[in-house]
């Protein structure tokens, strides 16, 4: 904006207008999009991983069953933040290790040399010559995988429980109609399990929302990063000098998260009313009474 050309002459309302529209402020606003993108991209991956985990736990093939049990149980005893710190760096080293073996087979020196992890230049992920945005997308993707792995395990627990909660009589009826186990699973059990899974999944969504500030720890420039960056005291050397405003910036983040969880709860109450309509559960019965 034209009037913002010389910030030192600004006062009052105009100062605020100009301050709140600086390039850095706009990056702060955009970082809310990063958080929402993470939520939008993680949720489907979490559901798929959760479904796979639940299927693995039901599997009669023992190694697969054990794998499912270990996967779903690991998150119970270990804080999620440890996974968030471990998974991205472990994945990164794993990928570089494999690329090194494939792309530079003639390098004989070991990859781990004391406290260093040395791979050839061609195996670097992303390549040293890649533009900045590739590095950012790569970092964000690793963060996304870490989130998906942790929350996939929670979703697997929820979906496994929900599958077991479908009334036995429903499945027996399907069997009596001559359906194969596969048909019973896909046509009867899976469609009916969602209503049992919903409370757990809605909780999971809330936890996922509340876990998004941890993106900051993974080096992603998210809302916490910008709140710290912009909130810190700015001396008169800056265009818009101000004292330490971090408390207000973090206050804004707190309100953002409260609105997110509050709004989500409203939506889930709606969905749950919709889904339990006509189901043989207390909710469904209560619903029938209200509409009758």
């Amino acid at each position, binding site marked *: 904006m034209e009037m913002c050309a010389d910030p030192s002459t600004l006062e009052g309302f105009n100062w605020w207008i100009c301050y709140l529209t600086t390039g850095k402020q706009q990056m702060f606003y955009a970082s809310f999009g990063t958080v929402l993108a993470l939520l939008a991209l993680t949720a489907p991956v979490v559901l798929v991983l959760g479904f796979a985990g639940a299927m693995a736990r039901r599997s009669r093939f023992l190694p697969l069953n054990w794998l499912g049990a270990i996967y779903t149980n690991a998150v119970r005893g*270990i*804080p999620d933040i*440890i996974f968030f*710190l471990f998974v991205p760096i472990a994945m990164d080293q794993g990928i570089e290790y494999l690329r090194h073996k494939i792309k530079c087979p003639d390098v004989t020196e070991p990859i781990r040399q004391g406290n260093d992890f040395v791979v050839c230049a061609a195996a670097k992920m992303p390549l040293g010559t890649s533009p900045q945005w590739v590095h950012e997308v790569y970092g964000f993707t690793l963060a996304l995988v870490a989130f998906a792995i942790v929350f996939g395990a929670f979703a697997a627990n*929820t979906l496994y429980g929900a599958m077991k909660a479908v009334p036995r009589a429903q499945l027996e009826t399907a069997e009596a109609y001559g359906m194969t186990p596969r048909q019973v699973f896909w046509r009867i059990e899976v469609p009916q399990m969602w209503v049992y899974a919903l409370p757990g999944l809605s909780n999971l969504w809330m936890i996922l*929302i509340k876990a998004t500030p941890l993106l900051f720890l993974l080096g992603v420039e998210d809302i916490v990063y910008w709140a710290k960056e912009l909130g810190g005291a700015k001396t008169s050397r800056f265009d818009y000098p101000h004292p330490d405003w971090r408390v207000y910036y973090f206050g804004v*983040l707190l309100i953002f998260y409260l609105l997110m969880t509050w709004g989500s709860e409203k939506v889930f109450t709606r969905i749950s009313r919709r889904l339990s309509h006509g189901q043989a559960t207390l909710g469904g019965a209560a619903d029938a009474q209200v509409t009758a």
Partner: protein
Amino acid sequence: MSMTCIETIQSYGLRSLGIGERLLPKTDITLCDQFVLIGSGLIWNIYFAVFALAVGFWIATLVALGKASPNPLLSAPAKAFIFVFRGSPLFIQFFLAYEIFVLIPKVGIDINLGFTTITAETRWLTKAWLGATIVLILNTSAYTGEIFYGALRSVPKGDMEAADAFGMSGFRKFRRIIWPSMLRLAWPSYTNEAIFMFHATALVFFSGFPAWRQSGDALYYASYFADKTFNPFVSYPIIAAYFVLCTLAIITLFGWANRRLNRHIPVAEKAKFRFKPQFIR
């Protein structure tokens, strides 16, 4: 210069409290170094969890009673308290609290204990041992308050009628009838809360609160080693193992309490512990 593992324990066993060797190992990091220092950091996690749970338990009881109160002057603040602390990430709460504590003027407040006077310094609030503990206490009070409130509403009507028939009222009825029933019903969920409160302590030194003189919790040292050795495959599994062991210890301890709370209940109706992830921060 290499040390035996016994020497390592002697110099680093209490390093997280600032006792022992000042400098952290930088080169030639052994497996023993990692086990000892990460274990040393675990003292902080246990300290945070024990204090938060011990104080939060009592505040949570008040919060639950407040939310259940017919008086809006009591129920509205209780509801708002629960909403704010359960609806926002603990990570943000740490940051915000730290910034607020930094802004509080640095003064000493004399507290007269009758036999002696101690001076409480407000600058302690910016230190993790006090500031982070306060945030964790408030946080667990909100989560536990909601659990207790749910349990309070499920106390069997018959129990209340029996109490009335015995002529109990007021605090006696609460102390003898409502509170034990509430605890019994809440206990499986409360066990989950205790587990995830313990897990949440790993966030302290990664949020606003700085580690003073490199005295941090288990995760602080685990990530220190992962950075220094550039190898995440040793220190993170070690801390994971420590946390799994502590989680099992919590389940065992709370299981004893659960059996005691349920000893008069027929087997089929006993409340059982089930894993519920909704108490994750």
